[in-house]
């Protein structure tokens, strides 16, 4: 998942970047509205976190421009005042949720998960594909009721595949959403992750949740393990 953080306060911006990266998101940062607009137009983002009080171009104005250019990924706004006028203005301009500063990181993560899930067409916090279910709120996975332990990166790969269950995801797309740009983009590493995931989810090789489509990428089966 590729997230942009637009925040003018350096410490907070970098802190958010680091913590989001540690939980497995691909994160870009922008310090003002204009830079934010540039990132939003040039990169395939899944979500943006935008502070309302930005220099150069206010958060509200930034969101308004994005929406008028048909850029429709979910947007979470951060507001300092937390008064309703700000919240209403922000959401009317096209944002999808708000968070009032200061916030607990867990709260931010929960909102991000909900927004990303909703944007992929899942209305409930638990994604279920056959026997495999992924709770986006608790970030836990069960296979036929049995809990499975995953690393943060494995979780992100699985979450991305399940959010787009039934769609073909190319290796490039998956790589871009798992790694920062400056990382090594060796596709072998991705194959290793997929291999580990398959072993953890399906040790007996009966469910076959992740299909490999040669030359095209991977696909998560909507009804994994049922047919």
């Amino acid at each position: 998942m590729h997230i942009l953080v637009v925040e003018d306060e350096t410490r907070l911006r970098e802190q958010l970047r680091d913590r989001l990266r540690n939980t497995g998101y691909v994160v870009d940062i922008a310090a003002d509205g204009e830079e934010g607009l540039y990132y939003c137009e040039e990169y395939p983002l899944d979500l943006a976190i935008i502070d309302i009080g930005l220099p150069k171009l206010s958060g509200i104005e930034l969101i308004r421009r994005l929406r008028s250019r048909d850029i429709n990924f979910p947007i979470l706004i951060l507001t300092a005042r937390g008064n309703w006028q700000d919240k209403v203005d922000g959401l009317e301009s096209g944002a999808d949720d708000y968070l009032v500063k200061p916030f607990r990181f867990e709260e931010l993560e929960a909102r991000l998960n909900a927004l990303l899930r909703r944007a992929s067409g899942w209305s409930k916090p638990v994604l279920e594909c056959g026997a495999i279910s992924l709770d986006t709120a608790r970030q836990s996975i069960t296979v036929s009721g049995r809990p499975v332990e995953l690393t943060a990166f494995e979780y992100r790969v699985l979450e991305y595949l399940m959010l787009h269950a039934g769609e073909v995801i190319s290796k490039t797309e998956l790589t871009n959403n798992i790694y920062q740009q400056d990382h090594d983009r060796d596709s072998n590493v991705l194959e290793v992750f997929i291999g580990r995931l398959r072993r953890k989810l399906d040790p007996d090789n009966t469910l076959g949740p992740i299909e490999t489509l040669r030359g095209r990428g991977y696909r998560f089966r909507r009804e994994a393990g049922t047919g």
Partner: protein
Amino acid sequence: MHSIHSRLLLAASLVLAGFLGATGLALDKAFRVSAEAAMQERLQSYIYALLAAADEDSAGRMIPPRELPEPRFSKPDSGLYAVITRHDGEPVWHAASLTGRDIGAGEQQTPGERRFSRLERPDLQLYTLAFGVAWEDDAGTEALYTFTVAEDTTVFQAEIAGFRSTLWRWLGGMALVLMLAQGAILRWGLRPLRTVTADLQQIERGHAERLEGDYPRELAGLTSSLNSLIGHSKAVQSRYRNSLDDLAHSLKTPLAILQSSQPGNDAADDSHALVSEQVQRMDEIINHQLQRAAVSGRSTLARPVAVGKVVQRLVRTLDKVYQEKQVAVDLDLDPEATFTGDEADLTEILGNLLENAYKYCRSAVRAGVKSAQHAGGVEISIEDDGPGIAADQVDMLLQRGKRMDESVPGQGIGMSMASEIIALYGGKLSFTASPLGGTRMRVSFGPSL
């Protein structure tokens, strides 16, 4: 006397009445004096005519007139009388008209003297002129006579009365015309004041931002001062809000850094938990104090805010935020209902109450807005089908965040903020059970000031 119009009208009317009255009296007096003088003239001329008509006997003694100069002297009760008396007061002659009457001609006048007087008796009102005459006969003996002529005042009075009625009729007519003219002048002259009043009402009703009319020079100072006052209060309010926003931003961002630098779930470490809790408290204090400071309160020049529109905006916003809950919202909004005050304040009140309903409802929220019976008032009710609030929890909910040392970490201060703003606007907030099963919050605001 609180109206300039009636003050001016009263003062001008008094002056007008005094002036016209004095004019009338002066004219009346002048006419009377000149009429009396004319009467005296006329009586004098009768005396001269009688003198001329008198004859002499052979010895040169006076023979009273036989041929009378005026026929009325011969006609009884004609109103014109004459009598000639000797020096001892004994009448020597009287005109035929005087038959049987006494016109009080007794007093003798020395020759050449005359006396003009008015006789007032119930049966008789006369102007009399007595004139002393010395008649020297051939022997050189002087006989003294007094010629007295009298005329009834009836004609004179009729003349005076005629003049008076004409005079007062004219003066009355003039007074009426002047009053009408004066009223019209006052209306015209004071019209700019009425225009300003009407324009100010437009501002109060929210149909105008400032006084835009073309006012006369005398009012230009007042209207431009009012305009700059309105502008100033708006500017102060927005500057105030802006600096509060800046303050919030500059205080809250460091708090956000502190908060998100705390490791999450493994908060087994006491000091981390402590920092986290204290950050939360500082945040609530800042929220509470800043929001309270930003409340603008009632002002006469505030535009009325359509309450229904604010509710609709908030419901759209909350629907987005609580999308997953699939809340069924039932709105009953009176489009005429308005709130006299700041829109941001109303948004804050209703935002907090509605969010409370969204948060605690199971699946249904109902919001109603209607104009109160008294003009300018509004009643808002927000209900949900949640578990409801126990009566003893209401106070706790509303007190939260008011006292800095009692704040409960992790709990919003929205409801206490809302109740405080409502109180600042002189409104009422009450909690009852809703037929939906949860809480019914009722807010009512009185009429605008």
